[in-house]
């Protein structure tokens, strides 16, 4: 048994069981979730993905050899070139959420906290700690979708069913399985003290994964929301329009 299976997987299981009981996920499984709450979830998650990509990039900046770097570059690339553009086009089509809607969203307390945890651990720790902070995002979603999909009686083509199905697809399973191999390799030869730090980082992210669902359901942003300034989006970005892509 690898480190993941032995020490982290049990935490994923507990998180999934707790998540499955939330009103938000129940509303998705039985199709009764008000669409505004789902839209809020999608807008928040879009902004989450930007920070998630930055965390992998922070790891990339700290790799020491080409081989390792290539793995991190693939993940950064996958997120920036596929997942984020997918979000922008898919949810536009399905929910009418424009890129402006996604960009204008201020990250909520929970998402800001979660991503600050990811970004802070990515800079201050080693690669194993960086990867660990990001793992629950993939692995909890994967296990959660596998757990919830059999309970879902919504017809094919239903928005919520499609969303659940998305995280049970072959390509996502493949990503998750590779991440497990990656973390098992990264923790080889670590002391128990180092491993307990890894487990703590993982447990924290699992907790953020758990509380996200109540945050979505209650569309909670910040308790003192009026302290925030108007958000600047990519539309005022001075580098907008520059591209280094080969024609």
């Amino acid at each position, binding site marked *: 048994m690898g480190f993941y299976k032995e020490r982290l997987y049990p*935490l994923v299981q*507990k*998180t999934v069981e*707790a998540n499955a009981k939330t009103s938000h996920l129940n509303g998705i499984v039985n199709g009764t979730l008000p669409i505004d709450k789902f839209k809020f979830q999608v807008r928040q998650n879009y902004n989450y993905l930007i920070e998630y990509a*930055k965390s992998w990039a*922070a790891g990339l900046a700290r790799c020491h050899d080409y081989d390792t770097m290539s793995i991190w570059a693939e993940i950064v690339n996958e997120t920036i070139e596929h997942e984020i553009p997918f979000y922008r086009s898919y949810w536009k089509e399905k929910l009418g959420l424009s890129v402006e809607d996604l960009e204008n969203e*201020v990250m909520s*307390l929970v998402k*800001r*906290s979660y*991503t*600050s*945890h*990811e*970004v*802070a*651990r990515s*800079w*201050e720790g080693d690669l194993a700690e960086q990867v660990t902070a990001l793992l629950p995002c993939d692995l909890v979603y994967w296990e959660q979708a596998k757990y919830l999909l059999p309970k879902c009686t919504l017809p094919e083509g239903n928005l919520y069913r499609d969303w659940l199905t998305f995280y049970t697809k072959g390509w996502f399973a493949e990503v998750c399985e590779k991440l497990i191999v990656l973390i098992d390799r990264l923790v080889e030869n670590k002391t128990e*003290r180092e491993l*307990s730090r890894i*487990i*703590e980082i993982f*447990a*924290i992210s*699992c*907790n953020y994964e*758990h*509380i996200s669902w109540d945050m979505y359901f209650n569309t909670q942003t*910040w*308790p*003192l929301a*009026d*302290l*925030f*300034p*108007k*958000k*600047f989006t990519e539309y*005022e970005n001075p580098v907008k329009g520059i591209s280094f892509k080969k024609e």
Partner: protein
Amino acid sequence: MGFYEDKLYPLVIKTVEAEVKTPHLQEILNGTLPLEKFRFQIRQNYNYLMEYSKGWAIGAARCRDYEVMLVLVELLRETLEHEVPFYREYWKKTLDISPEEFEMEQLSFVKRSYTSHELARGWEGSIVELVTALLPCAFVYWQMGRKMKSMCTLPEGNLFRNWIEFYTTGWYDEACKQLIELINKLTLGLTPREEARVLEIFAAGCNYEYISWDMYYNMEKWPLGSLFQAKSV
């Protein structure tokens, strides 16, 4: 008038007004807060200070000029050499909290989130962003101390009164005034976009300050606390 007076002070005042209404600070004011809750607050704050110090240290490492570096190193030293030892000695004496008890305490959801925000901004942003993330801690406590002292009718020597007065002493005043000077210099010439980012960082910090009081009052750690192992010291 500088950036602090124009842009940050109004946010500090709103935060202080909201937080003095929390049951935790109300009960500190009238002396009825259960000691168990106060001890929880102190233990959490001790662990907060460790991460807060790391924030200044990151600043010192990333700074490009000697003058700013000196200020950041001073703040780091102030925290590590005075505030942390003060916590260890003073609260050992008055609340009998041992160093082991401090060390065993797991950072709660709110404190972990707050310090991750401080450290993430510290690593990823400019020096002004780094300093901004760390400012609400000093400024909100400063204004809160002043406001609460004027409202507090507890006798001299009372544990809670002493705690409030800690943030109204001359050296704390001095430190905050230095921080105002620093942020006013660092924010000169910011573009509106950079300024919005600074204000967002400050607003997030103020929110974390605000929600800390309910977290202390309810002694909240994590919703899924069973995922954590015992902390290794």
